[in-house]
């Protein structure tokens, strides 16, 4: 039921054009959130989600596919939806680093960019199959991430923050001043192709020409679902427990045999792979990339998604990705005032839900599992 409502809502919101409709929809969401919080409905929902997790997950994927299908011929909503899905994937990657292992990464956009640039270079310079390039985007992000591994693992808190911040600035400036990768003008990225199926050609289904973004939306959805399942399983495993322990008390963890360095490197790498893969697909979809798309502010946007959703909470991340990406776009109607309003809205959300939109709950290793009495 909830899932159906949520899907319908997402569809309406993506469709809404006039300001009145957008405002009404926003108000409905706000109301739902407040009522949910007051009546404890959100808790009930959370428990229901974790108990019937299999059915719920199925329903949600179905809902997502339904929304995609409804938009099959509409380019723009699909583009937005795919953007949300890819940012969600990236934010889930950061969530592993940040929400679980406690390593703040303020260079999310840089790793996203590494993925995108890898895609640009590989698609245009090599004949590698794009699906492989997608994975390579993630691998590259992780490899370049290794440059930072020593300072990131040795430092903590604010000291760690400055490392990634510096990298974020460095990355963008480097791309700009160095002309090998197109300099400030950027690079073209070739489209995604799987077995001769060009993603940038509009598929024709049942005699109707679909939007070519449909391809990306489906692949994006697959990636996001994969990332989601991955994050979830990671959280619900000993590895997830290890990461939590490292975040909460590294000294005590060390006394119980937990390799702090190993855990941090693992989280940093896994996160970067996810961010990089999302970036690679994003590059292929947008088909043109330039350094200004991967600035420090964009990194902050990714961090904002993780925080707004509630640290460590994958569902929160998904919801926040939707809000952070779609809201400014929907505010286009107020043109130059949109970022002002956007920032005010985010502040308001936090004042009402200080722990994030859907705070993380206690870990359930096996969903629906109950101890035998």
């Amino acid at each position: 039921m909830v899932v159906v409502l949520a899907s319908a809502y997402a569809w309406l919101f993506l469709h809404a054009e006039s300001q009145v409709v957008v405002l009404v929809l926003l108000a409905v969401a706000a109301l739902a959130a407040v009522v949910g919080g007051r009546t404890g409905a959100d808790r009930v929902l959370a428990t229901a989600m974790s108990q019937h997790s299999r059915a719920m997950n199925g329903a949600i994927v179905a809902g997502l596919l339904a929304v995609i299908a409804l938009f099959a011929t509409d380019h723009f909503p699909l583009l937005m939806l795919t953007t949300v899905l890819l940012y969600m994937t990236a934010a889930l990657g950061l969530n592993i680093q940040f929400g679980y292992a406690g390593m703040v990464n303020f260079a999310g956009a840089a790793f996203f960019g590494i993925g995108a640039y890898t895609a640009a270079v590989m698609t245009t310079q090599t004949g590698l199959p794009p699906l492989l390039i997608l994975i390579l985007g993630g691998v590259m992000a992780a490899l370049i991430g290794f440059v930072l591994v020593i300072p990131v693992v040795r430092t903590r808190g604010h000291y760690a923050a400055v490392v990634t911040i510096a990298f974020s600035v460095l990355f963008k400036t480097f791309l700009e001043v160095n002309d090998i990768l197109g300099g400030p003008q950027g690079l073209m990225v070739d489209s995604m192709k799987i077995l001769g199926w060009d993603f940038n050609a509009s598929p024709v289904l049942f005699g109707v020409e679909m939007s070519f973004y449909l391809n990306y939306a489906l692949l994006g959805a697959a990636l996001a679902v994969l990332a989601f399942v991955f994050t979830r399983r990671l959280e619900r495993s000993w590895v997830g427990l290890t990461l939590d322990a490292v975040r909460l008390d590294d000294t005590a963890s060390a006394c119980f045999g937990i390799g702090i360095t190993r855990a941090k490197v693992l989280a940093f790498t896994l996160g970067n792979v996810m961010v990089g893969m999302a970036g690679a697909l994003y590059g292929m979809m947008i088909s043109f990339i330039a350094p200004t798309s991967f600035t420090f502010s964009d990194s902050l946007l990714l961090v904002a998604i993780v925080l707004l959703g509630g640290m460590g909470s994958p569902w929160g991340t998904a919801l926040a990705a939707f809000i952070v990406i779609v809201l400014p776009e929907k505010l286009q109607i107020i043109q130059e005032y949109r970022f002002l309003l956007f920032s005010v809205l985010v502040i308001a959300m936090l004042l009402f839900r200080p722990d994030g939109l859907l705070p993380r709950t206690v870990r359930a290793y096996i969903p629906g599992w109950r101890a035998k009495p």
Partner: protein
Amino acid sequence: KDTVKIAFIGPLTGGVSAQGLGGRNSAVLAVALRNQDEDAAYTYDLVSLDDECKPNVGVQVATKTAADRHVIGAITHYCSAVAMGAVDIYHKFGLPVIVWGAVLPDITYGNDYAEVHRVNGTMINQNEVAAQFMLDHGYKTWAVIHDTTDYGKGHNKYFSEFLTKGGGEILGTFGVTADQRDFTAELTKIKDLDPDVIYFGGLTPLGVRIRQQMDKLGIDAQFQGTSGIVSESFVEGVGDLAEGTVAFREGAPAEKLPGGQFFLSEYETAGYDEPAEAYGPFAFAATNLLMDAIEAVGPDRKAVTEYLADIENHESITGPISFDDHGQNTVAVITKYVVQDGTWTVWEDSAYASGDRALARP
């Protein structure tokens, strides 16, 4: 009357939003004026969108515009990188667009898209004139400062090319980031190099700071800028030091054309919060051109595209517009400006041209 939807896209938020807002206002003004016109066949509805000067956002709004079948044409982009990313989309969806501010040559010349046009000139034209002009005035040596955006780097590239070809010497080139505040290190080195001219490829905020800091360090070289600093805020920002700064801009000076005068006074009357800025007239001209096309052939993307392909000597407030087979306006007049008594004055009308005042170190 039927209503026809057209779109404007430019940077409405962020660092270069001043230019974007000026362009937006100018486009709004053009539409408003046309809608008052009894003789117009259609009523126009202008949708304005913010590309944040970011390619990814640009692609997003370009898709939004192009995918909307009701939009017949668009006036798009101030930032080159954004335009570069978006032209593919316009082509794919067959939406005729007229670029109103981005100056990178590749936007029109890097492809064969019939849908893409540009009313303003490219940075090539501008720098050719600039180099020649300065050489003619007897300058020999330069130091170049440019920002590391496509705009600054492009200007550096073309200016340096034309200058060395013409026999000028570049003593040093300095790339700076677009949000840098302190240039004393670069300028100190430049002071040591002692060039005749400091060429600056970049936008107003940086230009203001560099000019101010030149003074702080006691550098008396001539200051030469690009179209990026031809704005009132440059003069306002630098104050008295602005006197004698030269810069170049594509297009005829609005204030010298009858239509231009009209534009400026109408803009004044409309009472916008932000000035029209350097590229406002181009946005205005582009909007009018698009509406002229729709008036002529009706609200149909294909027809408009075909119509625009044949534009020859079309009257506009920036001078006559003629598109070559890449959709580039070929009659790209370049106007030379010098700051005199706190305003950008067309060189030929200035006390400098008449010999009453002299540039630094002629």
